[in-house]
């Protein structure tokens, strides 16, 4: 479904989704220059943007491993994020964290961890602070299905339910567990991810992550209810495992996103993967907007051109930006 948003916000949503897509494609293309680890969120842009639109300015969040999407969706500047991925002093965390530790309190992103489940308890604590102080802030905790076997997640769910704090756990299920179900590691005995939080007596929804409109509706319901004192929520967003998402080397089967293909301005060719043609949530949303007369192919192409310029500028900035002064490491990042 088309996200229930005013026209201007709807276009802003599409633009941010395209921005994240082009940003991640650029990371895949130039990330090796940074000589550091990163994880892309191609195919999951819509969930991050939907959550950001459902959140209020003072809300708190962590991010997951696929965190570039969540950071950009909440307004972190592409050049600051790209510079961080490159380990540069102008990075959002001055090069101390790299891709996996992006934190930006100015954008409500107050904790991140490269340890699976590491920040699930912290988001419960941020929500606890909100409740104790009588604020209306909600905390959003991000992780993937590969994290629900971590003890930290279970203790976070337990304390969230015990304290009845305004936290929304968003589990992006890209079926890592399902794919490893027959292996010795990564398996979970629960039939479905959503069965686990249900045991903690909290509000649980599972949603099709390829339908950005539905994701937005459910996340807005959860965040609004948590804000109103309805207690913790767990939203399982069932997404697609984009084949180019593994770490090192990251590849893009089928190449970069082609908006002429998405907008029906050129026919499907042999180089186009089934994902690009039929399953990409970005493509599904774009086509729906065009079919419903809410956007035009020309506008989509114009947005994409704008965004590509922005991402190109971010890459150029990150490449040229200086590294941090080595002594800042000994100063332990204190400002």
């Amino acid at each position, binding site marked *: 479904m088309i996200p229930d948003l005013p026209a201007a916000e709807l276009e802003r949503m599409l633009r941010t989704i395209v921005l994240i897509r082009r940003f991640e494609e650029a990371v895949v293309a130039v990330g090796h220059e940074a000589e550091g680890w990163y994880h892309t969120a191609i195919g999951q842009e819509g969930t991050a943007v939907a959550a950001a639109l459902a959140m209020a300015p003072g809300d708190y969040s962590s991010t997951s491993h696929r965190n570039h999407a969540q950071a950009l969706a909440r307004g972190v500047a592409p050049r600051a994020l790209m510079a961080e991925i490159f380990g540069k002093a102008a990075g959002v*965390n001055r090069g101390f*964290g790299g891709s996996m530790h992006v934190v930006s309190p100015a954008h409500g992103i107050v904790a*991140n961890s490269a340890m699976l489940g590491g920040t699930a308890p912290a988001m419960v604590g941020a929500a606890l602070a909100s409740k*104790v102080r009588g604020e209306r802030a909600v905390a959003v905790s991000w992780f993937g299905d590969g994290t629900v076997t971590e003890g930290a997640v279970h203790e976070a769910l337990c304390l969230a339910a015990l304290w009845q704090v305004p936290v929304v756990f968003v589990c992006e299920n890209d079926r890592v567990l399902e794919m490893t179900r027959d292996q010795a590691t990564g398996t979970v005995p629960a039939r479905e991810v959503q069965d686990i939080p249900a045991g903690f007596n909290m509000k649980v929804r599972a949603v099709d992550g390829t339908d950005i409109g539905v994701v937005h509706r459910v996340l807005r319901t959860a965040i609004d209810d948590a804000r109103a004192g309805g207690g913790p929520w767990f939203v399982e967003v069932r997404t697609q495992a984009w084949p180019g998402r593994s770490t090192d080397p990251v590849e893009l089967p089928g190449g970069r996103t082609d908006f002429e293909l998405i907008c029906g301005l050129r026919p499907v060719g042999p180089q186009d993967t089934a994902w690009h043609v039929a399953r990409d949530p970005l493509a599904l949303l774009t086509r729906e907007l065009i079919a419903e007369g809410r956007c035009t192919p020309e506008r989509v192409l114009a947005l994409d051109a704008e965004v590509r310029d922005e991402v190109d500028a971010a890459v150029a900035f990150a490449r040229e930006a200086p590294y941090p002064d080595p002594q800042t490491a000994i100063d332990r990042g204190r400002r």
Partner: protein
Amino acid sequence: MRTMTLGAARNGALEQAMLADERVLLMGGIAGRPGLTALTVGERLADRNIDISISELGAVGAAIGAAAVGMRPVLTVHQGTFLLQAWPQVVQEASKLPFASGGAVTVPIVIHLDTGITGDRDSRALSARLAASAEGSLFERPWPTRGAQHSISPEGMLWNVPGLQIVVPTTPADAAGLMLSAIASEEPTLFVEHHDLIFAEGPVSDPFEPVPIGVADVKRAGDDVTVIAHSIMVPRALEAAARLAAEHGVSAEVIDLRTIAPLDTDALVASVAKTGAVVVADQGHRSGGVAAGVASVIAELAFDHLRAPVGFVCAPDVPIPFSKPLLDHVSPLTDDVVAGVLATLERKGRGR
């Protein structure tokens, strides 16, 4: 000046801080019921004391998150060994988030730990002295021997995690003052108590005054040898020093580290420059812990002052046993400090 126990002083300072600053949030404490062992505050602060269930990992993580958004949580895991249940949150999150964020986020949490070997010969003597006055529940008394997992001295392990402050008070005034400083600090801080010290009485100011973090304290001045101690080994070193003076004519200086991280290296070097000999007394294990770390500082910064090798009075590298004869054999006692100092002074006398 007033006189009170370390437990009462620590709790009084905590309450003073909570009344002065609404951001201070107690997690896992007790409100409205008297107590020395637990973090205990008055009934009027009950709404700022959060029940943490039996979820150390989740609770420490929640404290980190609350701190990241502006609270100043003070959390207790009761028996300090339970911190090991929350180890990933301490080592991977609390210490790393401020650094990896490039300073964008601070984690001003205080984690209170009740630690140490209890029930050894010195500890049993303390229990006997307190038996007449000790009241209340089992947890409000000195503990007997508790076995391998509960007899933990975690400060050495914690010291190897950059990004954590570790304070180890031994007197009521230091406990109150370091609690105030820990709460005021922007750094994640481990407040490590030895269970047997909770009952130690001493003078404290009214109101409680902060004691700076990172400053050691000369608890007894001397000329012949420096005993560097922390936690329960400070009163044992002081008793040993009194015996050494009375029975052997030895003048021992006793330094109480008070803070392990950051370490007051200047105080250690200054004392060694005066005495020329060092014995490190630590209830932790001999290898890779506080004693080894202190000795490495002496070797690097005070080598030219040394007239004898650094002496060690530590637990050997074995888990702590339950049975009393086994426990007395491995636990560093006052007698061991006396023997360690005499052995070091013999080497000093022979020159190097």
